[in-house]
């Protein structure tokens, strides 16, 4: 009954490759996020989708392309992987308040995908 699940949990690959990370939530939430936790342990938002629409796009290289086929899924595709992409990537979801779309609701996180670039 995992609420937010990411696959794979670990990903080891070579520089220059293209890889994807998948995320699914079964909480019925309408907003999903991708965060990156770098070597200094900071969690930084990358993207956010609400009902399949991109609403947050932080300063992220365009080698990173999110895709939301439906509101329960948000996948992350990374082209031409670089050494600096090594990190833990977390997916999260939350439910927006229709009466107040910018209201704050706690986000629920997946267990992360540890990406290592050789």
């Amino acid at each position, binding site marked *: 009954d995992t609420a*937010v699940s990411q696959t794979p949990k670990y990903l080891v690959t070579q520089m220059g490759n293209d890889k994807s990370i998948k995320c699914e939530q079964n909480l019925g939430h309408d*907003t999903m996020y991708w965060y990156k936790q770098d070597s*200094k*342990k*900071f*969690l*930084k*938002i990358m993207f*956010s989708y*609400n009902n399949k629409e991109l*609403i*947050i796009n932080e300063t992220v290289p365009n080698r990173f392309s999110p895709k939301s086929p439906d509101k329960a899924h948000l996948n992350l595709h990374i082209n031409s992987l670089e050494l600096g992409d090594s990190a833990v990537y*977390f997916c*999260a979801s*939350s439910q*927006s308040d229709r009466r107040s*779309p*910018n*209201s*704050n*609701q*706690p*986000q*629920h*996180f*997946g*267990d*992360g995908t540890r990406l290592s670039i050789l």
Partner: protein
Amino acid sequence: DQQVKQNSPSLSVQEGRISILNCDYTNSMFDYFLWYKKYPAEGPTFLISISSIKDKNEDGRFTVFLNKSAKHLSLHIVPSQPGDSAVYFCAASMSGTSYGKLTFGQGTILTVHP
């Protein structure tokens, strides 16, 4: 530009005593604050939150205090238990930005000794 800071990388506490985790922020537009707990190899788990219209919120053993003038919040855990040992992140967001974008601190490792 680090807008949310947790200046103590680690904290060690005896079981049964109080744990106090601190967090400072610089952006006065932040109006909603959260604490997350994270175990190794797991994602952050939401613990407790507070809106800027309050200065205290309590949930069982966990209490969050907010001092807006000092741009400071703290998480009190009492009594502390060994199972509380984890990394604690504070996070902040502001109304009016897109769907609750969170800005995180770098975390504090709490160790509770039996």
